[in-house]
């Protein structure tokens, strides 16, 4: 990229001059396995005013409005953003926007309102939107497609980040696209280049998501026996796919769907399974100690698998794994390899997402207890989205590369990185 100067020093610290012409020290690991530059994402540094100022300047330069925090934030989470669903970013944009492609605007709105949710769904929607962007793209004169297109995508990514922080799977997908774009040889004509890129995206979706799901389903069916009682939590597209496939192959089992407020995603999973004809039971997460003695296996989906073996998933997953461990019920996590992430995390505080706190408000028998929670001075509502499950609660991870223990995730990451290089 134009404008970045890298100066390597003997003590392996790297001074990088970024777009604002400021020198910043970033840790640059020069290892024989390649170099990895790690940068802390801005959406978990909200309590640092310098970071906020830099972000505001960057967004102004890219002409993207900034989304503001909403409501009283619990002090333990003051480093995270908390948005209200009633104030989507698109209200501050002029439609049609000159800067942002309309497909991206629509996608951003779908993310922030929760219409598109779930890491697979979000990644696929993102890739389809990018396909639209690429087919509508024309290279300006004096510019090379491989460099200009990447620059064009940057404000879109900032916009989507403002609508809802990017998930690990989306991050990996974006990295892949950027790499493909930069690898376009300069002698390609524009039409050929665009066709190649669209093809790459199609391949990615086909290989990493669709075929991976098929492979995982095939391995998982060996783990499902007749007469099993399987517990699932929330709505994971992969786990639903596995159960439907197993039912079609003729396995006899029944499913217990555990759900939690305020998202109540389990109802969607319940509908899909009941439609297939699988016999289901439905409980809330507070009743999981009651229902677990009947259960023979627990199948969980994942949002991302971290490099230290922790599983990042919907909040409540770690609790289910904990109680299952106490009752000696095996816990199996199903995850495609494109969700593997190089981050490490030990608790659910440092890197998480805060959803709209108003979702916790409920009206029972005509009374809404928390209606005026903003007026009450010392009351806070916490609506976490993710949590991390320690690897000792998980017995097996089923991926498209096979069945691995939780601790082998960095091995898979290294193998993937070697492939990509």
């Amino acid at each position: 990229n134009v404008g970045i100067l890298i100066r390597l020093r003997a003590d392996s610290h790297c001074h990088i001059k970024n777009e604002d012409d400021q020198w910043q020290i970033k840790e640059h690991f020069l290892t024989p396995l390649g170099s990895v530059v790690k940068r802390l994402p801005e959406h978990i540094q909200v309590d640092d005013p310098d970071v906020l100022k830099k972000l505001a300047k960057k967004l102004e330069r890219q002409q993207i409005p900034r989304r503001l925090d909403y409501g009283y934030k619990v002090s333990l989470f003051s480093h995270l953003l908390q948005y209200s669903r009633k104030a989507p970013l698109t209200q501050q944009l002029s439609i049609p926007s000159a800067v942002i492609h309309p497909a991206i605007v629509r996608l951003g709105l779908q993310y922030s309102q929760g219409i598109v949710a779930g890491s697979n769904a979000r990644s696929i929607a993102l890739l389809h939107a990018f396909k639209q962007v690429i087919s509508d793209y024309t290279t300006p004169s004096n510019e090379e497609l491989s460099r200009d297109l990447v620059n064009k995508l940057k404000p879109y990514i900032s916009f989507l980040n403002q609508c809802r922080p990017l998930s690990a799977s989306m991050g990996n997908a974006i990295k892949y696209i950027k790499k493909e774009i930069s690898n376009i040889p300069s002698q390609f004509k524009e039409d050929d280049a665009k066709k190649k890129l669209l093809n790459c995206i199609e391949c990615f979706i086909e290989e990493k998501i669709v075929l991976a799901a098929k492979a995982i389903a095939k391995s998982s069916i060996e783990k499902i026996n007749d007469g099993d009682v399987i517990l699932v939590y929330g709505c994971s597209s992969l786990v639903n796919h596995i159960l439907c496939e197993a039912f079609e192959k003729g396995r006899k089992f029944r499913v217990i769907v555990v759900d939690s407020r305020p998202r109540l995603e389990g109802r969607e999973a319940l509908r899909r399974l009941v439609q297939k004809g699988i016999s289901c039971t439905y409980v809330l997460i507070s009743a999981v100690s009651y229902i677990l003695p009947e259960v023979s296996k627990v199948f969980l989906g994942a949002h991302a698998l971290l490099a230290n073996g922790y599983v990042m998933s919907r909040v409540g997953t770690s609790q289910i794994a904990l109680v299952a461990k106490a009752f000696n019920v095996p816990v199996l996590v199903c995850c495609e390899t494109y969700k593997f992430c190089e981050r490490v995390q030990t608790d659910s505080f440092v890197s998480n997402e805060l959803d709209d706190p108003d979702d916790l408000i409920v009206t029972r028998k005509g009374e809404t207890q928390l209606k005026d929670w903003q007026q009450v001075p010392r009351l806070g509502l916490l609506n976490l989205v993710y949590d991390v499950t320690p690897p000792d609660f998980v017995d097996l991870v089923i991926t498209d590369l096979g069945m691995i223990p939780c601790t082998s995730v960095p091995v898979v990451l290294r193998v993937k990185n070697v492939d990509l290089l």
Partner: protein
Amino acid sequence: HKITSSCKHEATLSSTNQKAACSRSPGTMPGPYRETDLTEKVEAFLSDLKRGGSGTGPLRGSAETARETTALLRRITAQVRWSSAGDLMEVIRKEGRRMSAAQPSETTVGNMIRRVLKIIREEYARSRGSSEEADQQESLHKLLTSGGLSEENFRQYFTALKANVIEAINELLTELEGTTDNIAMQALEHIHSNEVIMTIGRSRTVEAFLKDAARKRKFHVIVAECAPFCQGHEMATSLSKDGIETTVITDAAIFAVMSRVNKVIIGTQTVLANGGLRAVNGTHTLALAAKHHSTPLIVCAPMFKLSPQFPNEEDTFHKFVSPHEVLPFTEGEILSKVNVHCPVFDYVPPELITLFISNIGGHAPSYIYRLMSELYHPEDHEL
């Protein structure tokens, strides 16, 4: 209000003694009419128990139930004709069985009945002049030589017995009124400043406990809302109005947040004979999460919640309410194809509990069996 209105309802329904009830004058109470009035009161209490048992009615605190049961037993002692302690115990046992059957999950009713029975035994023994120690010690030798059955048949008549029993029941009532305050007084011994305390659902005992500590110390409380009834919301608004920094979290976030919690303080519906708990659903998960992080779990439970039940009586342990709370009727056609469960209680084993705080002080779960033997007589465990 409820009792008086249902009283009138019962009065109009009872076919016999209808005229007599209407023509009763408040000053003089002739014999058979006293019993009608008593029966009415008992019926009113029973129907109230039955109605208040589902999660939908206004939730009565267990303290209220305990007080009302004891007041009713005092009335029975005063008004029913009995000649010896044995007769009185039979009457109380009979009424007690009916009351327990009306709402099996409300164990305070049975506990109070057993306390009163124990009071009667003690007063009888005192009237007879025999030392209490000798009677109460259940030594192995005595068990073998007596052949299993107690030699006492409580047939002797003592004039002062009635007055003594009623006085003892009055003492019991005074004790019941002071339980919440006694527990709240111990708050400052257990909460230090800048702590993060977690609790679940709504317990009046824990509320009083935390509010008492908040008068002198500053700390932060995290309340798990406890779906589907979401009583945690009420608890949070009440605590925050008293100046305590409160956060409401969903049940799913209990484990995620537990690593920052210093203490877990909960209330319970019943304390079982092995030191375990029958508490609101979600408490077992909370206890497991606390154990995983080595966070102490403190249970604030007054003595009248201690019950001689054991947890392995499967069919009487769990109580279920309408599944409509979990999956509402608006979900449509999938309702007919899905089983939905909505249990109200959870079992928490004694290994997960660190401390019990009751109106007589703090105890470890391993001491509960001893307290039970002091409160109830072994022959009263089965009413």
